């Protein structure tokens, strides 16, 4: 129970700070700002969490329980940052699913769905984002990979090809 209350306290305070910050001015590098806020914010206010719970009559946490709190904060933060990517940029799949669901039993034809997607140029938006983030460069009418570590993309592809053994366009 102590572990749960500590995690809940830390995440509540940090999440509230996130909402206030985003209402004032959305940072340019949103995901990096989120990671910084959640990790350093939780670390900074953990003594306050410990003090508050002790005042409320709960026993202090052991070092193992603090590790458990850290794991909980880490897991939630990573899950939220992953979800935030879907908040920042629309998921074509989820947009399609939602649009078909709103049509109910009437359903939608391919033409209806194409018209829907015409209003949502996902590919163009992604290419623009890659250019803005400095991951692609444009030269002489061509797109080239820019100087960038692409660590996440490399990990994703390594895992897909080497660990899962999936070739491209496989896995449904």
């Amino acid at each position, binding site marked *: *129970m102590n*572990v749960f209350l500590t995690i809940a306290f830390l995440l509540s305070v940090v999440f509230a700070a996130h909402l206030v910050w*985003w209402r004032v001015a959305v940072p340019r590098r949103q995901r990096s700002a989120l990671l910084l806020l959640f990790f350093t914010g939780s670390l900074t206010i953990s003594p306050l969490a410990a003090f508050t719970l002790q005042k409320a009559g709960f026993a202090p946490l*052991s070092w*193992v329980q603090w590790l*458990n709190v850290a*794991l*909980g904060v880490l*897991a*939630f933060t*990573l*899950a939220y940052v*992953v*979800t935030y990517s*879907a*908040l*920042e940029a*629309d998921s*074509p*799949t*989820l947009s*399609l*699913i*939602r649009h*078909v*669901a709103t049509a109910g*039993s009437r*359903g*939608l*034809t*391919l033409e209806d*769905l*194409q018209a829907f*997607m015409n*209003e949502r140029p996902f*590919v163009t*938006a*992604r*290419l623009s*984002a*890659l250019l803005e983030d400095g*991951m692609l460069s444009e030269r002489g*009418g*061509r*797109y*080239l*990979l820019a100087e960038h570590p692409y660590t*996440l*993309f490399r*990990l*994703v*592809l390594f895992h*897909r090809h080497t*660990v*899962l*053994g*999936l070739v*491209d366009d496989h*896995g*449904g």
Partner: protein
Amino acid sequence: MIALELIHLAAPVAALASMCVIHAVWCRMAPDAPLLNTLAASGVGGLAVLAGVELAAVSAGQPVRDMVVAAVLVDAPIFACLAYGYANFVNLGQSSVRVRIYRELLQMPDGVAIETLREEYDEHGMLRSRLERLVSAGDLRKDGGGVYRSGKSRLQHIASVIFGLKRFVLGRHSEFNP
């Protein structure tokens, strides 16, 4: 006491590790299986491991009630977050346009003509491949007349949460309709 705390610390990590191993084995045995289905099944396997580890806490002397409280309030939610993160990581390799473009340009040191890339990643072509994937996984149904209707509700629930959060955090429904 420390032993019980270590069991609860290890439980979601052991469950995630099991999920990753089950998923890797399953993908190698059935590479054409829908990704969401393999992830869901591997997640269930991870949950089974989580339950097994929690029972170990009871064997080590923890009262069942205390074990259930720890499992429900802490261990299972942590595993759910870790499993969700893993599923999204895997799905990036499947669905992300950015990862696909990166993969393609990696093999082309001289780059690719802008028009060629735009033709290849044609919005309509990508729509068709997404619809095929969704129908194959059962998330959409297509009748003989070519009309698409909702299938399984799992992605609809996810979509409801995501679009609700968009509204709450960012104050808008879509990046295309600010």
